[in-house]
């Protein structure tokens, strides 16, 4: 309960902020009207006035934003929004991030980002596109008018209390008090906002009839920015979830995560199809559609997050009026965009043509279809519960499993194209060339995969995928690895051959040729680096098939016993999992003015060597309703190991969660996440590739003298040496630190010191640990189900066989607090009770044969559906109709694509044969052309 003072609710900051927003509102309406009318009437003064108005609008929104942040940092609790999302004890950075911590502020933040981006976009493109800049400004400002209408009339962040002013605020949601949340939302918002600029240019091009390629270069850059920031926002969100939510994963197909992912797909599709337009003059209309879809999905994502129509950990709560306003806005957008596209369709028709299925054009077309199918599938699955509730008045849930079983089809197809498309030529690739291009990467990938299958049995693991509600077990990890190897090999071949050709052409050394390739063909080779990043990301995704989890309850830490000297091997403070041993050393409670922290000190051992001391913790914020888990993550990297055994732990995260405590007793959940670090590494590579694509054109004059070439080569070698030296130094430092210092979650204020002398007494090996200890700890298991003991919730009633575990993974925890977690994963008491029900009910069935197991699964799921009265309790919708639409859409789309492409190919071949230049080239002009070509790099 907040203390309230009797102070006056007057706040000069609120008055000034509201005035700034009102003026900005009028201004953006003027800007939109003047821009559109000016462009339509060819009135220069109106257009220029609209441009200045856009700048002024940006400045006024900056004023409002600065004022609201000022109110946060000066604790102006007369303003409701400041009161709702901050308190005096928060550090300054979290007060700043409170700006976008709730609905009103996040809308203002959106408007600010769009205003700043549009200022830059208009300033950069004004001269080049004077004939349509009015429409660009008008479109952007119409979007701003919508958001400003919400801000001014409904969600004013400067609204004040009518009477008493509280003395302190409620505080920011504890989950958002994380450093990743300082940069994750801005990154995602920038990605969303950046999609508005291409949309505005697209609408302007359609409205003005200027449908040539001039505006495409501007649009491409902005879509790349959109792609980059969406990727950054998604990966930062993943990292935040990994560190903050404590469920051992980074992607849960949460509706709000999906909201950022859907436009990512369409933006990626656009970036590919625009290359076809630039290179072959095709797919103009389709590019317009993709541009519109990308923008539309960003608004859709905002709608899902803000209106509360879907349940999510990120959602801001239900608001039907807001939802209606968004629906009207999206309807208007669709009418305008579709109307303009239809109006200009004749001028958007392709002037190029397809001539073969084995061409790069067709691979891009296929890639577009898969990306769009993925986007639409995710959209459908995300909206399915809402659609079902609206139409049938019946709740449903779409859990992680639903996506994980369906999305790999699209992912694997894209992974194949990622490696195959670069090997294809424009127009057509003959059979011989196809063979020569695919042979080496194919053989390399096949050989390596077979080797892995022979040497590493784990790669033979089967994973369940779904096809039209039928589950099939397939060797997905092996197939994924095969495609990853193929992709990496094909990109490697592209670089290798490219360097060879360039070396031959320029006479320079291979290193210079590599840099030359990257600088002169940045888009192509930058794109290949992005592909490489995606392949590495898929390595991380493969790791999900091998992650393991276990729950342990340890009665007391070693610090609870007044013993000195080495810790006995059979001390109950030890617990083991998958070759690791963990020593529960101490549990301490500390507090500061924001929270009370309960921190466990645990040392992690392997092969008799201590790897690190980690500090999993739970923080109970004084102004938060539920505790947050502060997980301890110990990354195991190749360079950190000294023995081959340790090196075999290549890129595995040991992930410890303190799930509960009772006095000295502590409940731990341990995840081993193999290959997860490839996800972060893959993103870094992807970001590098995108930045290379975004680099402006730089002429790279080749050195003309031998001395010049030598100097260039020497510089490059020194640069490479410097990078290698830096990386080696960092690796060595990490290697040294890994064994001695703590990693993972940092202890809270006043946290326990590092492990004492007695903790350094290492047990010799896991083999030395008495069997009794292992048995007490629950033993080892590979199937992922926890087998804990003692008291608590997370470890209670764990499954003892695969069938029980499967059923638990198919049932959603209905406690109301958990967001779409299954009862297998959920740590709450309700989930433990549900698990008990499953164990009790399955005991009535025989599960000796596969058919009996299937029968038991169906019967148990049906019993839970009956108990809850709807399929809401199921993680995967059982109704086949739920699968019908996406499958029909995907396969129907593919069918249409193939039929249409077949027609195009036949017609293209005929037209190309007719259009062959018959006349001999004019010799003088041919010579001039050769001269000009010689100057092109």
């Amino acid at each position, binding site marked *: 309960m907040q203390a309230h003072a009797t102070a006056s609710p007057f706040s000069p900051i609120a008055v000034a902020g509201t005035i700034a927003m009102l003026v900005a509102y009028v*201004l953006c309406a*003027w800007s939109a009207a*003047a821009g559109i009318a000016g462009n339509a009437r*060819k*009135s*220069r*003064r109106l257009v*220029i*006035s609209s441009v*200045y108005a856009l*700048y*002024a609008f940006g*400045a006024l929104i*900056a*004023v409002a934003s*600065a*004022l609201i942040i*000022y109110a946060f*940092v*000066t604790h102006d609790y007369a303003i409701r929004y400041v009161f709702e999302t901050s308190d005096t004890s928060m550090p*300054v950075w979290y*007060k*700043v991030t409170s700006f976008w911590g709730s609905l009103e502020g996040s809308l203002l933040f959106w408007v600010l980002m769009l205003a700043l981006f549009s200022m830059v976009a208009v300033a950069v493109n*004004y001269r080049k*596109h*004077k*004939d349509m800049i009015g429409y660009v400004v008008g479109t952007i400002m119409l979007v701003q008018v919508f958001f400003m209408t919400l801000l001014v009339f409904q969600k004013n962040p400067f609204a004040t209390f009518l009477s008493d002013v509280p003395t302190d605020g409620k505080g920011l949601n504890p989950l958002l008090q994380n450093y990743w949340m300082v940069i994750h939302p801005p990154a995602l918002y920038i990605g969303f906002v950046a999609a508005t600029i291409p949309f505005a240019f697209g609408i302007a091009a359609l409205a003005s009839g200027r*449908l*040539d*390629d*001039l505006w495409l270069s501007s649009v491409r850059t902005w879509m790349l920015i959109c792609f980059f920031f969406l990727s950054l926002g998604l990966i930062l969100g993943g990292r935040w979830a990994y560190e903050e939510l404590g469920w051992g994963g980074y992607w849960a197909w949460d509706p709000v995560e999906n909201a950022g992912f859907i436009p990512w797909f369409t933006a990626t599709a656009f970036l590919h199809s625009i290359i076809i*337009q630039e*290179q072959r*003059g095709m797919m103009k209309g389709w590019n317009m559609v993709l541009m519109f879809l990308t923008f539309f999905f960003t608004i859709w994502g905002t709608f899902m997050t803000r209106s509360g129509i879907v349940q999510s950990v990120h959602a801001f709560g239900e608001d039907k009026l807001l939802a209606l306003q968004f629906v009207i806005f999206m309807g208007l957008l669709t009418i305008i965009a579709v109307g303009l596209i239809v109006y200009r369709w004749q001028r958007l028709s392709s*002037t190029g*043509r397809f001539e073969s299925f084995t061409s790069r054009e067709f691979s891009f077309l296929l890639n577009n279809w898969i990306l769009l199918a993925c986007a639409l599938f995710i959209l459908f699955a995300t909206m399915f519960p809402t659609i079902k509730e609206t139409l049938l008045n019946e709740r449903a849930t779409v859990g992680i499993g639903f996506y994980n079983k369906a999305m790999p089809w699209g992912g694997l197809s894209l992974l194949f194209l990622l490696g195959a498309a670069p*090997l*294809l*030529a*424009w127009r057509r*690739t*003959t059979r011989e060339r196809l063979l*020569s291009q695919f042979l080496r990467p194919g053989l390399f990938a096949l050989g390596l995969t077979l080797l892995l299958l022979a040497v590493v049995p784990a790669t033979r693991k089967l994973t369940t995928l779904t096809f039209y509600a039928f589950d099939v077990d397939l060797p997905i990890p092996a197939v994924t690895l095969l495609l990853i190897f193929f992709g990496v090999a094909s990109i490697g071949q592209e670089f290798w*051959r*490219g360097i060879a*050709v360039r070396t*031959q052409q320029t006479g320079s050394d291979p290193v210079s040729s590599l840099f030359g390739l990257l600088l002169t063909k940045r888009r192509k080779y930058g794109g290949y680096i992005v592909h490489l990043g995606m392949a590495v990301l898929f390595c991380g995704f493969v790791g999900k098939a091998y992650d393991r989890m276990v729950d342990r309850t340890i009665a007391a830490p070693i610090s609870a016993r007044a013993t000195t000297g080495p810790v006995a091997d059979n001390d109950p403070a030890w617990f083991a999992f998958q070759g690791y041993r963990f020593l529960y050393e101490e549990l301490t409670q500390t507090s500061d003015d924001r929270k009370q922290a309960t921190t466990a000190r645990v040392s992690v051992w392997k092969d008799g060597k201590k790897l690190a001391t980690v500090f999993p913790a739970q923080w109970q914020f004084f102004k938060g309703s539920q505790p947050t888990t502060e997980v301890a993550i110990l990354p195991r990297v190749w360079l950190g190991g000294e023995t081959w055994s340790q090196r075999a732990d290549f890129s595995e995260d040991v992930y410890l969660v303190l799930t509960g405590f009772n006095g000295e007793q502590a409940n731990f959940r341990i995840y081993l996440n193999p290959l997860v670090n490839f996800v972060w590494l893959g993103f870094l590579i992807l970001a590098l590739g995108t930045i290379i694509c975004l680099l402006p054109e730089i002429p790279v004059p080749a050195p003309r003298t031998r001395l010049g070439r030598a100097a260039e080569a020497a510089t490059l070698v020194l640069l490479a040496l410097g990078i290698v030296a830096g990386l080696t130094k960092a690796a060595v430092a990490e290697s040294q630190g890994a064994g001695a210092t703590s990693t993972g979650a940092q202890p809270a204020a006043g946290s326990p010191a590092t492990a004492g002398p007695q903790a350094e007494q290492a047990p010799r090996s896991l083999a030395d640990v008495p069997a009794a200890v292992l048995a007490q700890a629950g033993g080892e298991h590979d199937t992922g189900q926890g087998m804990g003991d003692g008291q608590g919730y997370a470890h209670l009633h764990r499954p003892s066989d695969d069938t029980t575990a499967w059923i638990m993974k198919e049932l959603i925890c209905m406690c109301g607090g958990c967001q779409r977690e299954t009862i297998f994963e959920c740590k709450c008491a309700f989930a433990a009770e549900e698990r008990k029900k499953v164990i009790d009910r399955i005991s009535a069935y025989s599960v000796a044969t596969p058919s009996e197991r299937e029968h038991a699964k169906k019967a148990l799921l049906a019993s839970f559906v009956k108990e809850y009265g709807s399929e809401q309790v199921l993680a995967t919708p059982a109704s086949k109709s739920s699968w019908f639409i996406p499958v029909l859409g995907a396969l129907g789309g593919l069918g249409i694509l193939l039929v249409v492409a077949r027609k195009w190919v036949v017609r293209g071949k005929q037209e*190309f044969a*007719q*259009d*062959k*230049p018959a*006349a001999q*080239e004019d010799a003088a*002009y*041919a010579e001039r*052309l050769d001269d*000009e070509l010689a100057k*092109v*790099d």
Partner: protein
Amino acid sequence: MQKDWTMSSPKSTNKSGKRQAAGTRNNAESAPPAVALPVAAVHDSAAGASSVARYVGWFVLAVATLIGWGFIAWVNRYRLSAPVVFLQLGWLAVTSAVYFLWHTGWVALAAPVTGDDPWWQPEGQREALLREKKSLLKAIKEVEFDQLMAKQSRADADELIAVYRHRAIGVIKALDALDSLHASASPREQLEREVRARVELLNQSAHAAGKNAAKRAKAQVSERDRATVKKQQAEASIAAALAGSQNGAPGAVGAAATEVAAGTPDDAVAGPGSNAHDQATREPSVAAAAAAVPSAIAITQTDAAGAREAVATPAEGSTQAASAADVATAEAAPARADKDITP
């Protein structure tokens, strides 16, 4: 107070890479002769003044911002803290908002431009063709690169390259035709365009200067004289420059310059003054220009047809080609014949 609200920088780069003062030559060259540009749009002689005005504006903005920052720092006893930083950022935004708001209103209240405003032509035919050529050259290189990397068979690559080359040669021819219109076809036409533009400029300048009838009448004589002298000087200098630049025909160009200077005394003399007078002077000027331009129009139209022919080749697939043809057709119109193709 005249102000350049066209948002152009004080200096802009022309096609040949030479830098020139904004608002002077650009406006003069691109303005259609028969159109009376409003006061706010011309600012010819005020190019320098508008630059000064813009710099004054920025200076006032900077001073206001600094004063505000100083005041905020003083109130907070020069301690840098989060509130101070955000307050100062807010103040910067306030001054910027006032600056841009002022411009928004100022521009909106300016007199409208009537007629065919050249401002709406962001890119000329030449740029479109150059872009098309660059794109085709890159496409040829890309196919060659693919072929060298063994992605494409020699025969396929040759076929595709032949198409691109055919198209590229068409573009180069179109560019040549365009260039010949500027450079080789007629120094006289070039000169006439320049003269016409300058006369227009002087007319506009004078028009802007006088609103009072008495003052106009009084100023007419002196302005006339001044304008005549200025114009003759300008024409002579242009003629000399052109004569110098034309190898082998200096005499002809010089004669053309003299002829033009001598043949348009009324234009020069009647330039500034009343609106009626403006109109009177403009009409002969247009008539003269119209008489001088037919050959240019013919060439431009041929050129447009050539460009269209070039893009209507088998390689119709190129979007740039189509747009180039559109631009070519559009610019073949007499009213614009001398707009984007002025060197």
